[in-house]
């Protein structure tokens, strides 16, 4: 990507907060989530299950998985417009029009009784005022772009006639149909086998290069992050704990949690050695620890960590960490 494109910030999320209300209590699910996304950039959102990475994406398109959840604060500026303050009608135009979603399981996220082509054409006709023939032409064009062979014929195929990898391509095509500025890819390769996974990752990076679309890439796989992402945000317990360039975060993680995650990668150990783990369990909703949410599992914990929640602060140019005692040099024994 050329530097000029990367300079333009397309999405700016500030202090996004999501709470769960019910039974008379209010639980914080997402806390002070802030990040920028530049045009043509792939930002990885990494974390364990329940760390809030999917919740962040669902909060951005305002489709939270339960009506007990609500966005309680923060702004998200998409091209300078706060999408968290839009009314329902304007928000519907943003969904699919400016932000496209790609989901984990392509088999269940496509309508089983509608042909692939119709699903793409429907999205095109919904967001742009084009005729039926034109929508079909554009849909075939998109199918070709996402690497589906013989798109003219495949237009009339149903999802069950596609293989898993083809279905994921089709879902990417549906999300891309209206030329969105941002693609949110929620674990798009988890349900696929490894060879297909590599093809889909290649497709996503190609689409970034050819169309200049920005991608928020949600995954728990650090290997995938280092393959495709430009920058990485590491999430833990509903907060971003570290945010920076891919090389800095994965290579020289400042937060003990990031360092722990990296050390848990099987490739980090020598053959025959047990795969490392971070001891303990991630915090559950309703049982969030006081202070820094990672402190019960942190090897560098001190008294201050259990009382004061650290802010996301600049540790180096373009590299932010939320930790009272960030790692300054590589610690060998962060994980046991």
């Amino acid at each position, binding site marked *: 990507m050329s530097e000029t494109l990367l300079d333009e910030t397309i999405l700016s999320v500030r202090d996004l907060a999501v709470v769960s209300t019910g039974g008379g209590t209010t639980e914080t699910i997402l806390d002070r989530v802030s990040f920028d996304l530049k045009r043509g950039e792939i930002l990885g959102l990494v974390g364990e299950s329940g760390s809030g990475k999917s919740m962040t994406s669902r909060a951005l398109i305002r489709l939270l998985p339960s009506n007990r959840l609500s966005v309680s604060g923060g702004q998200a500026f998409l091209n300078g417009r706060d999408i968290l303050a839009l009314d329902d009608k304007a928000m519907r135009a943003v969904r699919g029009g400016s932000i496209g979603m790609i989901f984990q399981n392509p088999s269940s996220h496509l*309508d089983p009784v509608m042909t692939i082509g119709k699903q793409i054409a429907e999205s095109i006709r919904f967001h742009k005022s084009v005729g039926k023939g034109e929508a079909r032409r554009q849909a075939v064009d998109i199918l070709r772009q996402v690497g589906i062979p013989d798109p003219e014929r495949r237009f009339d195929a149903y999802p069950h006639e596609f293989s898993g990898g083809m279905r994921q391509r089709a879902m990417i095509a549906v999300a891309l149909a209206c030329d969105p500025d941002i693609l949110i890819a929620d674990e798009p390769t988890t349900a696929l086998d490894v060879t297909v996974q590599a093809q889909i990752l290649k497709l996503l990076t190609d689409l970034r290069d050819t169309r200049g679309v920005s991608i928020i890439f949600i995954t728990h796989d650090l290997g995938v992050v280092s393959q495709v992402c430009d920058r990485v945000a590491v999430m833990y317990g509903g907060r971003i704990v570290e945010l920076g360039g891919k090389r800095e975060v994965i290579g020289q993680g400042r937060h003990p949690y990031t360092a722990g995650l990296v050390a848990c990668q099987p490739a980090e150990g020598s053959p025959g050695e047990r795969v490392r783990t971070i001891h303990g369990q991630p915090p559950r909703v309703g049982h969030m620890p006081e202070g820094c949410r990672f402190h019960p599992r942190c090897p560098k914990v001190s008294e201050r960590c259990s009382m004061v929640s650290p802010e996301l602060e600049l540790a180096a140019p373009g590299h932010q960490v939320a930790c009272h005692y960030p790692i300054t040099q590589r610690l060998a024994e962060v994980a046991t």
Partner: protein
Amino acid sequence: MSLVRTETARTGFRLSFGGGPLPLYLGSAILLAWFVLAVLAPLVAPYDPIFQDGTARLQPPNLNHWLGTDNFGRDILSRIIWGARIDLQIALFGVVFPFLIGTALGSCAGYFGGWIDTVLMRIIDVVLAFPFLVLMMAIIVILKPGLSSFYVAMALVGWVSYARLVRAQILVIKSADFVLAATSLGYGHSRIMFRHLLPNAILGSVVFSMSDAVLVLLNGAAISYLGLGVQPPTAEWGIMIAEGQSFITSAWWITTFPGIAIVTLAMGFSLLADGLGELLGVRE
């Protein structure tokens, strides 16, 4: 080889013919035959269905009157053929209106939930609390006996089964992933409901409507038998049975042949429902 044995056991129970399930073909053939007879009634029927021949009363089946004549000297065969027109119409309209009303209301209840759902479900409970036939008779009597009143009553009473069926389906699939995906494309409620939910939810109702046609047909015949539906002298199978019942010991053919006609048409619908269910993988 247990594998082979289970395979044969399975095919042994499932008769199939030409790629599709046998009941589908059998049912369609019966329905088609009745439909053709009904359409061609003026050409096929040997006599006028309401012409009374005073010289040929209560004749048993013979070469002139293949299925005999009734106490007014009317030809049973001609009356059955003409009656097919009315009975097919009863089965069609008696199903279509409840289907449309029930599907629309049921999908709203399932999709929106909340008070809409609560109110509709209570109304359904009330309708179901009355015996089906008694409620229908009450409505028809209030409206004025006749076929159009029968359709109105059928629509008012029959929609509940479709509403419950569709609501249950919508409840299951409205939380499906593809609905979330459709929402993430910015689609509004009506588009999601009519273009994505209903096409996925409707299969069960379509199959059910075929078996419902059987019940509607029997209902229509029963209502006419009770004198609230089709009015004499129009040829309709239910009336024919009602009119012939006083002669059941002396002239069995007056009631038996219309009875057989009802049974075959009902069987046609029933077989079609089974076949469709098997073909589409819907289990009731």
